[in-house]
């Protein structure tokens, strides 16, 4: 357990508790002890963080991360993923179950948790599979997964195409009160597609994935949600039609939450350029009007969280023909900088940006943290909003380098990350303590 820490005179932005102003934050025994707008005395032996000009924020929580362990440790491990997380300001991550072996049993959940304990950097919350082996045929043992430590169930990477099975998954998960997280893609509509269907796919001669491949599944699952009274979390929303349906469902009081990735907020399908596989992902980068709709949806509350869908892949997965390239990019270490682009552009106020990275995800999944009231876990991210830097993929803590943002100039950088009152990232270095 950590010592006493005083964060002095930083701009504390804590959306859940309505705080946005210069404050002192005192941390003791791994928890927030006091937040004060008057200067606090430095307790004996306390470490002081001079946070003048910095933002002192609730630690970021990423609902959507692929840690690749077990099975693809060459791309990422729980340890390297946690390093990347804290370097990106994340104090908690939800680990997707599409590992090799799939996390569809308590045994795999426990393995991931034991690796996370050994890494001892940030909180890792596993998500279990909806269906055994992600095959979309039979429900996995949800009860066992939850009792072993899973916080949600998802077949992420694949949709549950069988509507009856999806209906049962939503019904059954109500026993445990966990969200069913869904990757929305009608495989009959996306079949053979390599990027968003539009003028760019036509120009490049690539088979397109129409927006309807996502929107049709969102519509289906909202119908099932209404019937089952379950909890649905829609992963990586990418298009205007989905936003419209989610907004309307929320208005009607359905228990639906949604996330968007920083890259879907920043890039459109033109980023594919001349077959850049670093811009290949599922769902694909969409049209500019979709990007605009997503930006509006994070402002008006339709979208609850920014989540990275951190998807590490090796060079050989990307240095191939576009159609063969594997989907996904790493995201943990670029999320804040990309979100700050919207803040600096006046498209997103700072408080809402912080909410999308902290309280929003905590609330969506019922996770601890995400705010800084006394008694809350001392999971804290310190950001310098004005530091200018350039993304250098070669310096990522992630084991993988697959990003379209290498070389992109950013303004706003994570300077410190604290988990349970312990400094785990500062001065550009991850602080290991194993």
């Amino acid at each position, binding site marked *: 357990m950590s010592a006493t820490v005083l964060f002095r005179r930083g701009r504390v932005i804590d959306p859940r508790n309505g705080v946005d102003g210069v404050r002192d934050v005192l941390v003791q025994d791994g928890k927030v002890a006091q937040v004060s707008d008057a200067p606090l005395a430095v307790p004996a032996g306390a470490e002081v963080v001079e946070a003048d000009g910095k933002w002192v924020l609730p630690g970021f929580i990423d609902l959507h991360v692929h840690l690749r362990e077990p099975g693809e440790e060459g791309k990422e491990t729980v340890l390297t993923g946690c390093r990347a997380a804290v370097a990106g300001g994340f104090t908690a991550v939800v680990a997707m179950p599409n590992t090799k072996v799939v996390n569809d049993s308590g045994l795999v959940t426990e393995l991931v948790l034991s690796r996370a304990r050994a890494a001892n950097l940030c909180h890792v919350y596993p998500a279990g599979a909806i269906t055994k082996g992600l095959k979309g045929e039979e429900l996995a043992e949800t009860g066992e997964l939850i009792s072993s430590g899973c916080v949600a169930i998802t077949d992420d990477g694949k949709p549950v195409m069988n509507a009856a099975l999806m209906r049962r998954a939503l019904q059954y998960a109500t026993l445990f009160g966990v969200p069913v997280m869904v990757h929305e893609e009608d495989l009959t509509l996306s*079949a*053979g597609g390599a990027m968003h*269907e*539009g*003028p*760019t*796919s*036509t*120009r*490049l*001669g*690539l*088979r*397109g994935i129409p927006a309807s491949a996502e929107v049709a599944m969102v519509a289906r699952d909202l119908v099932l949600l209404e019937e089952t009274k379950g909890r649905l979390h829609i992963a990586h929303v990418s298009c205007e039609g989905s936003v419209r349906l989610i907004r309307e469902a929320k208005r009607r009081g359905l228990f639906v939450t949604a996330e968007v990735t920083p890259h879907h907020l920043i890039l459109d399908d033109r980023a594919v350029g*001349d*077959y850049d596989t670093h811009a290949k992902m599922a769902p694909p980068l969409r049209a500019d009007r979709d990007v605009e709709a997503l930006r509006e949806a994070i402002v008006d509350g339709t979208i609850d969280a920014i989540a990275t869908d951190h998807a590490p892949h090796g060079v*050989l997965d990307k*240095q*191939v*023909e*576009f*159609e*063969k390239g594997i989907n996904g990019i790493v995201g943990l270490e670029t999320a804040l900088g990309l979100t700050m682009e919207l803040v600096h552009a006046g498209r997103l106020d700072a408080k809402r940006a912080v909410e999308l990275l902290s309280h929003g995800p905590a609330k969506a999944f019922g996770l601890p943290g995400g705010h800084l009231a006394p008694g809350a876990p001392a999971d804290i991210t310190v950001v310098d909003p004005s530091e200018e830097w350039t993304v250098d993929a070669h310096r990522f803590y992630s084991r993988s380098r697959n990003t379209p943002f290498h070389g992109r100039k950013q303004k706003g950088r994570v300077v410190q990350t604290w988990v349970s009152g312990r400094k785990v990232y500062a001065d550009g270095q991850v602080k290991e303590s194993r």
Partner: protein
Amino acid sequence: MRHLLGIEGWRRDELEAVLDRARAHLPGGPDATHTLRGKVVANLFFEDSTRTRTSFHMAARGLGAGVLNWSPSGSSTSKGETLLDTARNIEATGPVAIVMRHRSSGAPHLVAKHVRCAVINAGDGTHEHPSQALLDAFTLRQRWGGLDGRTVLIVGDILHSRVARSNLWCLKALGARVVVCGPPTLMPPGLEALGAEVTHNLDAALPQADAVMCLRLQLERMGEAFLPSTKEYSRLFGLTAAREERMKAGALVMHPGPINRGLELAPSVADGERSVILEQVSNGVAVRRAILEVCTS
């Protein structure tokens, strides 16, 4: 040294320079210059080809180059070698140009980023077939003198056609109006943004065209039901003898081949007076000589 990865991005004067140069390579023109004597051109054809491969072979030989003919059967690709490794290994043998056909759109772009010799796209997936577009334009220029103000109607499976995309850019750059026609299921979105006029009514579009370019129905790329039947396609979009009669006087019929006779084009039309299909093939060699010269000079 420059690549020819597609027509997109080439300026009109650059395209015209290639076409002008091709004229010198026509039979009876000034003799071949043997500008590639002692050099090697590598033909990397990952997909089957008769016309294009032969044509590039003839063109390279005509310029005095040796030709390395490579195909995937019996090569290390069957042992799992990646495209890039194959290309780098071929490059290491010293060709001045790699002429490449591949089933994946963008494959030549990938190779071009990693080799130093010129890369010439001989057809990539459903993206571009630039040398075909140049020889088509050459053929039309030969007949008309120039393309300004002319209307070319491209009919058929636009979705899967690399010829359609390259021709669209090429013909537009050279001053022609391009109308594309086909069933909605075989028409990719956003063609208007690329400069085409789109119609699904062949009978209405036909009388306006100075040339009709029929495309092959690429049944091998159609795993799903794009069409109710080939018979219905032929009835709605086939260039039949009856339709030919409604064409403008002097209007030309083109096809990049291979033809599905009786499906997209009636045999009598394919072999008729309007047809310039074999001229396209003959002109291909001259145009490809010019391409090789421009890319390797």
